[in-house]
């Protein structure tokens, strides 16, 4: 494959320049480029699958600068990845086919970890496993926060608005960052926040510096290449305890979330949590389908009869508490007092730990990510169960919901109906709290290497984006194949925000060499083909 707009001869010259910068070994062409395919692509094997033309892997920021200058000279489209593990959202493949992947995996230095001030400064190729091992080997009393799975990059995950499982602010990874180094499209290096002060002593401790707070524009965008990023770490807590709250009735979700939100906003509950429904997340039968298909998606009384007939309670959540042992016992006690206002509410004590854990203790921990320990265990939950068709990956559909029970009820019914109309069985559909003050309802769409199956999955995924937007629920993140669709739903005032992104793009990257199409931001010369105002 040759990048669009370049001849084979010019492309060959550009690759020769890249080889001079990084060495022959680190420019990948031919069959090695296949390793940059999105392993979980919903377009696998189809003409629209997003494919790279080559890849280049620098080791130092100076090489990144030289690469972007070559890209400008040749109009070579680049697509930056950090560890390339953004599976379910596009992996290591470009949004714009023919781009050269700028693979930053070799930039894998942990530049600083401060125990007294609880921060780290890392390069994009560092993985959560790398950072965890670094801290563990040195016995530092610090936790990282890791998403699940943990082979991704703290930098890449934060820039895609990813999140993990320990308390806020640490699990909202962009929110827990402090300071960036960015290579702009013209090769200039910028340091944000206090990093702009040549003698800075607080680059990882004060985010704002002076003047406009620029960091956000480098997330979910293509305005620069982040080559360093600071993160706040969680001082190792004394103890952890888990407890589960179960509500019986369909309408219990209203006071359930009201109480939970109050506890979360006031800081008594500060953990990641999922609100699951043994009814809505359980296996469907004919009675389930009949209720969902009704005009209102089933009344509360009808669902309560269904749940009782199946011996199920309606809602549950597991809460985690971190901190001094005495304090978290008091928090759990207070939580139970508050929830006791709901008739029939039930509580169950979960596991508890005192830190630090030994290696032997860690080997017995199942839910590692809640303790800031990276894992790949989540993949076992994605394996096909007996009777399910084999899949080769998944995509996440992830609309943001207000923190109310009413929204959860409505969303479950709306999306369950849409999924069943599309004959799609999601891998999960659970409300979760990752970021401040909102929920995300995650559905896992299995993808395969079968073209017809993937077409069906894509059609429903596309419809879900539209249905969500019609109800006021925008998605927070999406697979590369759906970025245009997702961004087009954020259309207030004739897509004013999207047009602002394009104006920034034109100013910062006039030749459009960086990650064309990422989150719907296309350079001017590719924009005319994109139906920004079209319906997804």
């Amino acid at each position, binding site marked *: 494959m040759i990048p669009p707009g370049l001849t084979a001869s010019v492309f060959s010259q550009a690759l020769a320049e890249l080889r001079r910068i990084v060495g022959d070994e680190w420019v990948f062409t031919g069959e090695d480029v296949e390793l940059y395919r999105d*392993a979980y692509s919903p377009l696998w094997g189809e003409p629209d699958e997003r494919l790279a033309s080559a890849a280049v892997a620098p080791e130092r920021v100076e090489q990144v600068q030289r690469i972007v200058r070559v890209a400008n000279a040749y109009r070579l489209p680049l697509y930056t990845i950090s560890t390339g593990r953004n599976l379910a959202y596009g992996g290591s493949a470009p949004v714009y086919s023919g781009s050269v992947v700028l693979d930053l*995996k070799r930039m894998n230095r942990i530049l600083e970890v401060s125990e007294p001030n609880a921060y780290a400064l890392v390069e994009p190729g560092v993985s959560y496993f790398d950072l965890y091992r670094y801290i563990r080997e040195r016995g530092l009393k610090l936790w990282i926060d890791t998403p699940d799975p943990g082979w991704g990059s703290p930098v890449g995950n934060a820039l895609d608005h990813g999140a993990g499982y320990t308390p806020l602010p640490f699990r909202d990874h962009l929110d827990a960052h402090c300071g960036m180094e960015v290579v702009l499209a013209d090769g200039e290096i910028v340091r944000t926040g206090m990093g702009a002060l040549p003698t800075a002593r607080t680059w990882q401790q004060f985010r704002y510096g002076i003047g406009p707070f620029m960091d956000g524009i480098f997330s979910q965008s293509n305005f620069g290449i982040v080559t360093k990023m600071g993160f706040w770490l969680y001082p190792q807590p004394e103890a952890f305890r888990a407890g589960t709250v179960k509500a019986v009735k369909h309408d219990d979700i209203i006071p359930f979330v009201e109480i939970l939100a109050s506890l979360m906003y006031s800081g008594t509950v500060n953990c990641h949590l999922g609100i699951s429904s043994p009814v809505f997340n359980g296996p469907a039968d004919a009675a389930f389908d009949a209720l969902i298909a009704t005009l209102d998606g089933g009344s509360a009384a009808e669902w309560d009869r269904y749940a009782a007939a199946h011996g199920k309670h309606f809602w549950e959540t597991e809460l985690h508490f971190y901190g001094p042992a005495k304090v978290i016992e008091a928090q759990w006690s207070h939580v139970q007092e508050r929830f006791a206002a709901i008739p029939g509410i039930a509580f169950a004590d979960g*596991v508890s730990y005192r830190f630090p854990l030994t290696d032997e203790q860690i*080997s017995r921990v199942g839910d590692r990510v809640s303790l800031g320990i990276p*894992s*790949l265990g989540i993949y*076992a*939950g994605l394996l096909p169960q007996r009777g399910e068709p084999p*899949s080769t990956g998944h995509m996440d559909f992830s609309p943001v919901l207000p923190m109310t029970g009413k929204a959860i009820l409505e969303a479950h019914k709306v999306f369950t109906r849409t999924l069943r109309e599309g004959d799609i069985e999601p891998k999960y559909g659970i409300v979760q709290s990752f970021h401040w003050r909102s929920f995300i309802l995650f559905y896992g769409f299995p993808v395969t290497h079968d073209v017809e199956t993937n077409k069906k999955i894509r059609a429903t995924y596309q419809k879900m984006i539209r249905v969500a937007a019609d109800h006021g629920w925008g998605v927070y993140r999406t697979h590369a194949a759906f970025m245009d669709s997702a961004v087009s739903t954020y259309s207030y005032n004739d897509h004013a925000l999207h047009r602002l992104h394009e104006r920034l793009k034109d100013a910062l990257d006039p030749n459009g060499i960086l990650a064309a199409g990422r989150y719907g931001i296309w350079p001017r010369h590719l924009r005319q083909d994109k139906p920004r105002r079209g319906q997804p």
Partner: protein
Amino acid sequence: MTRTGWIGLVVLAAAASCCEARQVSSSWTIFEPQAPNAAPALIRRGEIAYEERCDLCHGRVTRSATPGFGVRMAGTEALQAKYGGHKPAALEDRTDLTPELVKYYVRHGAGIMPFLRKTELSDADLDAIAAYLCRSRSSRKPSQE
């Protein structure tokens, strides 16, 4: 040639390099690996790389007596489902692997296991992992048999 189309060639290559092929019918061939004579240093490097890159999914499942505890391992669970106990589910317990097959799956993936790029796992480290997983019986620790 598509990546899927390479499977046959890779398996044939495996037969040529380190396995004895035994034709059992017109359509099936069983490959019996011979003990490769990999250097101890290469095997040790492979063991380290295996622990860092593979063991998280393909290790021996270590669950405590409490249900739901102990980390789940997708690769081990998938191979347990595939072979139903006829072959060990943990890769380190297998004695029938060939270096070529190990390398094939790392670079091509299988099911939900994605392939790994060369910046994530170099060819040299992959050679070492293959040497480790295919080491001779005599070089294994008792617990690894």
